[in-house]
């Protein structure tokens, strides 16, 4: 279910990047007709801008991926999309510039394009991970993003081989976004074996999947698991980490309590299947899938 959802998001990312590329070329043609030259070498800037548009579209959706899955507030989702678009544009420009630089060294153009695609996939996933460096799961995500970029770029180039251009870039760009998000989803599904479920209150029925190694839980929006609508939840309340299939919970401040099976814990404790965790007024159940 989760993987399906993320791949659908990847498709959307591809569509958005396609639309941006199209409109960007339209604007360029208009400028070209009016004899306004932004730079001396028009073809060069053309090539770079394609990358930045693609990065804009991909980064916008991929950055808001996790917050869309956990149903954060819409303002938060939109702000993340904006940030992702900003980073994505810069990253796309840089990666395609690198590809152009490789072409000047008389390397095969197809190989250059492929490297630029992989760098794009790699760096976009890095940019999404910047704000959660505490999750001990950066490497697999980033590598899978790079591989996704490689596969998607390969298919894009294959389509270019048959001179499918114009609106048919759609398929290629969709597959780029799809493959990146799909591979990340596979890597996350491989690790998840347990989850928290909220039992009471306004966030009832929400699932917190343990798909990284380290998590923060609390009221603030910088956490991985946000308990927004409950009383007596601290900004950064608890820290959860995995160690060889064993899951530990830690109380970050002594002022507030974390109850496991209605007993307050001193500093840290391991949790078992079926345990009930109480944080503030929120009831959570830990279970293994």
């Amino acid at each position, binding site marked *: *279910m989760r*993987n399906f*959802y993320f791949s*659908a*998001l990847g498709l*959307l990312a591809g*569509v*958005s990047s396609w*639309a941006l590329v*199209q*409109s960007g*070329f*339209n*604007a360029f*043609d208009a400028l070209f007709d009016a004899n306004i030259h932004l730079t001396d070498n028009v*073809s*060069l800037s*053309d*090539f770079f801008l394609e990358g930045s548009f693609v990065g804009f579209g991909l980064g916008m*959706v991929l950055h*808001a991926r996790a917050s*869309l*899955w956990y149903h954060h507030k*819409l303002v938060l*989702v939109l702000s993340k999309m904006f940030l992702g678009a900003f980073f994505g544009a810069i990253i796309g420009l840089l990666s395609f510039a690198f590809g152009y630089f490789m*072409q*000047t060294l008389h390397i*095969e*153009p*197809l190989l250059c394009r492929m490297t630029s695609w992989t760098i794009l996939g790699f760096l976009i996933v890095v940019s999404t991970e910047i704000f959660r460096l505490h999750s001990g799961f950066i490497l697999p995500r980033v590598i899978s993003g790079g591989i996704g970029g490689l*596969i998607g770029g*390969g*298919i894009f180039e*294959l389509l*270019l*081989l*048959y*001179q*499918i*251009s*114009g*609106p*048919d870039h759609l398929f290629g760009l969709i597959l780029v976004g799809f*493959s990146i998000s799909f591979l990340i989803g*596979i890597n996350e*599904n*491989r690790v998840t074996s347990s989850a928290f479920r909220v*039992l*009471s209150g306004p*966030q*009832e*029925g*929400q699932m917190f999947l343990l798909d990284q190694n380290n998590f923060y839980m609390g009221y603030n929006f910088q956490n991985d698991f946000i308990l927004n609508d409950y009383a007596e939840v601290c900004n950064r309340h608890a820290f959860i980490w995995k160690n060889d299939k064993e899951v530990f919970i830690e109380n970050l401040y002594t*002022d507030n309590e974390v109850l496991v099976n*209605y*007993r*307050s814990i001193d500093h840290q404790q391991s949790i078992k299947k*079926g345990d*009930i965790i109480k944080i503030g007024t929120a009831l959570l159940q830990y279970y293994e*899938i």
Partner: protein
Amino acid sequence: MISSINKYFCAFANSVCLVFIFFFNSCVLLAKELSNEAEVSSLGKYATFQFDYFPTKPLFSNNELYILSFYELLLIFCGIILTLYILWYIMKPKPQIFTEPGFKIINLKNNHYFTPLKSESQSLEFLEDLEVSKSYRLSGNLNRVILSPHKNTFLLEDKNFKNALLINRRRLHRKVLYDNDLLDIGEMVLLYSNNLFHEKNFQRASHINYQSVYQSTKPKGPIQKCVPFLKVSGSKQEIPLVKNMNTIGTSKINDIVIESDEVALRHAKINKVGQSWKIQNLQNHENTSVNGRRIDQRFLKEGDEVAIGDFFFKFSTNKSQIKRQKKIKK
């Protein structure tokens, strides 16, 4: 269910990846052959968006370039944001709100199965008749666990002391049920829900005394370091045991006053015997327990969990005393 879906997904993904890799290999080989054939000299042609040296093989469409206008782009963008919103809205879990009091089953097999309760005194035997409960092992003698109506909620009384019945993961025999209380009956886990006190219906009283445990006479002057104290669970409150004999109960004659429905007027007493402290139950029909075991009288140790009615304390001797004892041992 979820695990099986995951397995299918993984198998599917692996097969798709294999196909992708196969395609990619063939693509690279083709490109190598083609690039050997084509003779390209100028640098400018490399940099252009379309590769002129590739053979013209229109498969799916003709070569006419169609470029979107700005307004079409805006439309597509709005469409994407709308679909994102729809995805967000569809996947958002909607909490079920029941008007009647009842039990939710929160085991994974039967997720959120709800059984409403009648407003009359009844035993928990009706759980055995449910179709859902056939897959669980329930504890025996459920006919001796009785629910009786009590001020909009229910009072649960367990007359059989050998039952494996836990209320809020503790062994209790008599409790007024409130919203989100947890019952373990054998393998089945039940969550009591009573939306009469839901947030929307709930009105705050003008004055609430939040401190429901307090001392009737506060000790004057500084407290000695060797005095042990009771920690109230769920808050930072600490009650020092200054006197040699302390009585606990709801009436204000006692040294430690607890405001609760399930505590008797004069419930228990804690007194000093030599160097150690002893707790004693004063009412036969009421429940005081230490570490989850119902007791008549017992000597307390460091870190014991004392339950009086539905209030929980942690007994702890002061740290300075422990240090002093260690020094003496050395």
